[in-house]
């Protein structure tokens, strides 16, 4: 098996960041807090990094929803653990804590913003941690740390705050190898894509696919900014207002 086929995930900076923090979290010393918060705007590669970490540590992954109440959250976590939920909220909490403590597998709560606005939910998640002393990774949007700041007792239990890294030129090169195979992209075009993306890995990837399609049509082997000219690129901005109607 050639390296080309095995190693096709772009080892972008975010992946390493989260992997390191997760390792730190799982192997932390007794007494250190067990939460890590991973936050950043959408499209910055949070999900890709989260799934890589979840696969490495066989973590239980739960994506939160705005409509959930305390009992739903517990039931969903138990569902994810493959345990039949039986009994009242305290019973469910005990079952989750027991399973987390015994299996030593971390718990990842994605879209944690939905819980951050509700005091009851925050306290419940803290109960899960206190009952199991397990590792919890909370993933959310850019404002998540500010929302958590209101909860003093929760805030203090966070081992590390991890902002998602914006896409870099280095990342763009790695992404280009995947999305634009066999085509040489000049650095000026890549850095243009990075600037346009406002940090988003997703937008860079979308534009790389655009470049690849154009290159196939035009028969380019290498592309730079001048060859690209002013062809449209995806910026993610909402369309401008049209002229007077």
């Amino acid at each position, binding site marked *: 098996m050639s390296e080309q086929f095995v*190693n096709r*995930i772009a080892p972008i900076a975010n992946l390493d960041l989260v992997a390191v923090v997760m390792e730190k979290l799982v192997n932390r010393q007794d007494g250190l807090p067990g939460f890590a918060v991973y936050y950043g705007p959408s499209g910055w590669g949070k*999900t890709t990094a*989260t*799934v890589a970490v979840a*696969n490495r540590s066989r973590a239980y992954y739960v994506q939160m929803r705005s409509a959930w109440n305390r009992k739903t959250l517990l039931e969903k976590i138990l569902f994810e653990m493959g345990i039949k939920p039986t009994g009242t909220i305290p019973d469910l909490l005990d079952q989750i804590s027991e399973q987390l403590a*015994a*299996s030593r597998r971390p718990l990842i709560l994605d879209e944690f913003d939905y819980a951050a606005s509700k005091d009851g939910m925050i306290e419940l998640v803290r109960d899960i941690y206190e009952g199991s002393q397990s590792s919890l990774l909370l993933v959310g949007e850019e404002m998540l740390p500010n929302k958590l700041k209101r909860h003093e007792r929760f805030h203090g239990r966070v081992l590390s705050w991890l902002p998602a890294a914006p896409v870099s030129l280095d990342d763009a090169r790695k992404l280009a190898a995947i999305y634009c195979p066999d085509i040489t992209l000049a650095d000026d075009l890549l850095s243009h894509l990075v600037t346009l993306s406002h940090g988003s890995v997703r937008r860079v990837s979308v534009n790389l696919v655009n470049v690849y399609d154009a290159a196939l049509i035009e028969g380019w082997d290498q592309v730079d900014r001048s060859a690209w000219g002013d062809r449209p690129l995806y910026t993610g901005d909402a369309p401008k207002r049209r002229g007077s109607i």
Partner: protein
Amino acid sequence: MSATTARKAKPMQSAGGRGSFQRIWEAIRTRREDFTAFLIHSDSMATLGAIQHYINALVKGGYVERINTRSKCNDQQHFRLIRDCGIEYPRLNAKGEPIQRDLCTEALWRTMRIVGGEFTTRELAVQASTPERAIAHTTASVYIGQLIKAGYVVKVKAASKKSPPRYRFEPQRYSGPRPPVVGRNTYVYDPNLDKVVWQEEMNHDDF
């Protein structure tokens, strides 16, 4: 009977289908301090052979220890659980080493669910791989082919000359954390539902 009824914690039970190893493991966890193969047999209804085989693997793997020495041939060997790893039974070979095989489909199943959106089999294999355990592209494409038959995955774009086909996972079909099992290309079994979700149709003409 005492007048006050103290609430007794019910033992946890795993959801979905439970194979014999899972039933043995749950019986061991319930009796954790002291058990024999016969007691586990009466609790789990697994065969004694399977129980003894699995307990041996657990002893070698360091999950269970012997707590008495047999001096007479009709002495029962008693055991105790020393390392509890939760509700899911540890998958061990006869030497007590963990089996990695099932983790590949589990990773593919998990990755499809978390990532959402469309993917090619190659992208999926890459995202589900970890540095310690690479997943071959063929593993992913064979598995996806079976999941399509069972309706968990749909093909959204056919293959063209330039690009491979793209697939999408049906999130409403996510039945639980355990990956569906593909059996010899003739059926797909979903352990979360404890149901065979797809079966090859018999061709009666060939019989």
